[in-house]
């Protein structure tokens, strides 16, 4: 039961995180963030997030390449 609860929690958290990620990609949300943060902070944050995303993809591709 505990394991099912944990799994459910994990799936729920993952779902919410994915939803937030997809919502954040919408142009309206980006425009609002641009206004709220100011262009310098917004663009700097965007650059850093992109680099982190790129680097995170390395181990993903690495593991994928090992799969049969």
């Amino acid at each position: 039961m505990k394991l099912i609860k944990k799994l459910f929690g994990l799936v729920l958290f993952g779902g919410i995180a994915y939803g937030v990620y997809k919502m954040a990609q919408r142009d309206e949300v980006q425009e609002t963030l641009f206004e709220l943060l100011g262009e310098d902070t917004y663009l700097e944050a965007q650059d850093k997030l992109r680099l982190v995303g790129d680097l995170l993809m390395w181990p993903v591709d690495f593991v994928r390449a090992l799969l049969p």
Partner: protein
Amino acid sequence: MNPKYEALFTPFKIGEVEIPNRIVQCSMGGTTLFGWLEPSHFDLEGADFLLKRAKDGVGLVLPGMQVIRDTMGRKWLDSNRQMYRVLKPYMDEYHKTGSKLFIQLAGGFGRSMAVTPWMAALGRNDLLNKLASPIVDVQYACASASATPNRWADNLTSRPFTVEEIQEMVWHFGATAKKLREAGIDGVEIHAVHEGYNLDQFAIANMNFRTDQYGGSLENRLRFATEIVQSIHEQAGDDFPVSLRYSVRSCTKGWRKGAMPYEEFEEFGRDLTESEKAVKILQDAGYAFLNCDNGTYDAWYWAHPPQYMPDNCNLEDVEHIRKFIDIPVACAGRMDPVKAAEEIAAGRLDAVAIARQNLVDEHWVTKIKEGREDEIRPCIRCHNGCFNFSKAAGTENMQSLGDSLHLGRCALNPPTMQHNRYKIVPTKRPKKVAVIGGGVGGMESALVLKKRGHEPVIFEKDSELGGLFLTASAMTFKENDKDLLRWYRDEIKRYNIEVRYNTEVNDLGTLRRGFDEIVVCTGSVPRTMPQIKGFEKTMNFTDLLRDRKIEDDKLQTVVFLGGGQSSCEAAYDMVYNFKKHPIIVEYGNDLVAAQATCLANTSFLRDAMEYHKVPVYLHSTVTEIGDGYCIIKTPDGEFRQECDAVVNGIGFVPAPVGDKGPHIHRVGDCVAIGNLRTVIWRAWDVCMRI
């Protein structure tokens, strides 16, 4: 279509494969189907870019080079089955365009591997390299024919490949080609007896000291390349066409020394006489197409010609070796499509290989077909977005990590290879936007805003658009820059954007009532150093170049204070085109030591200064400027230099108008000094969000 282009749109054959026209998109690092530095995978961004090129009408598309064994993760390219499964439906879609696609398979970099500081540290230390080898084996990635010095890092020497390693690689070329053919790929190109890459290092006598079957005679030095094509034919079939990327001449004077286009010199690499024999051996081995230019990493500006190189710089040599073989030949290197069409029509060339123009304008082929060539955005050969591997004295490759991961982007056209990041999305709230400044930043901002549905108005203090780029493009050899400026002005007219000339805005408050948003693009002004006695006597680049003092007979000896790109370009113009006497005084340890400027561009300028014997004082400064002289302070002491002028080349400082605030944005050099890439990309970053 203008008849002068007609020959470009006739078909030709590579082996049994018919290519619908004579336009070949050369391979460009980063525009890959299977990833660049990452472990190989089907790369969606690259796939999107390549499909767009096919839809535009390129006859043969060559994606970016794909090393036969991943640099990261060290998996062989034939081992990822999932990748080939995804490739099959992609190729079905691709073939609907009529275009053909060859994958460029590379035998590695050898001594040309653009090692960064951390890679150099691994490569120099056997233990660290061993520990890191499951992820990256720098010594393997840099392995070459023989122990030769790395192009990028001092004190790093390539280790020689073992015969077993060579033969293992040869087999994997064949295995990969077989899988590619099964997935619908039309052919492969072997990279490369070209540009000083690994196979070229085997082929060049001065880089190959082996005494086994891969060294010595020309046949032996070409054995690696000939065994590869044989392995491919054995495994993928005799009728699977194999192209070879090939440098006719190395144009190299020695380690890290290139030759000027007009220079007489003793060839260190492959000369024309040897090339005549080499192409015959390669044809006889089974290669069906030669995709040619000149150069090595030591003479990089031949393979990646900046604006300083002449148009069609490799054509004469390529046409020469074509006489010795029967297979078709393409020529790359600043190729002018009109000249290429003439040569093809005359039977002296089979195809034209064009690379970077494909990044700048994704519709350039269509525009030619439709007679709209004036609308083509020109490539200015800056390499700032696509290929900015950079190096100065004592450094390794200085390229930023973000750029290393994303080659093949474009300084002038941000959506290239980043189509999800930069796109025109129509606005739901059209606004009236004041754009202050009509330089490149202002014009690009206005174009993005207009395309999104806003109403921009440009306020320009001068009587013409261009800003500081009018000065930067004024040099004799900057025809591409001048074309770009013309293109911008035409686009501003075509999009019917209002420009208020001779209108200087000093107070943003006056605009607040009439406009919803303000974009400040007021650029920069020359930096000053009042602590230098007589600094006020210096001349700036606008005086020298745009106002044409460079042509003044009284101006013969000119001292450039600062050895950056602008100084070196102006000095080159002075010495080469005007036969005058520039002198460069640089505070640092090298000329053009900028992180974002490609070594192909910077090494040309450095080699040119040396060839033309321009006096260059490093670790030096000017301490006093007087009438007809200046005092130069070097590590060896001070001396008086007679001169007609001192040019202020110490850089620029941002010159924004007004304060920051809500609905006020800044674009370009008024934020921080950069280059066209930083200006144009920020124009998009900002104007996509207004």
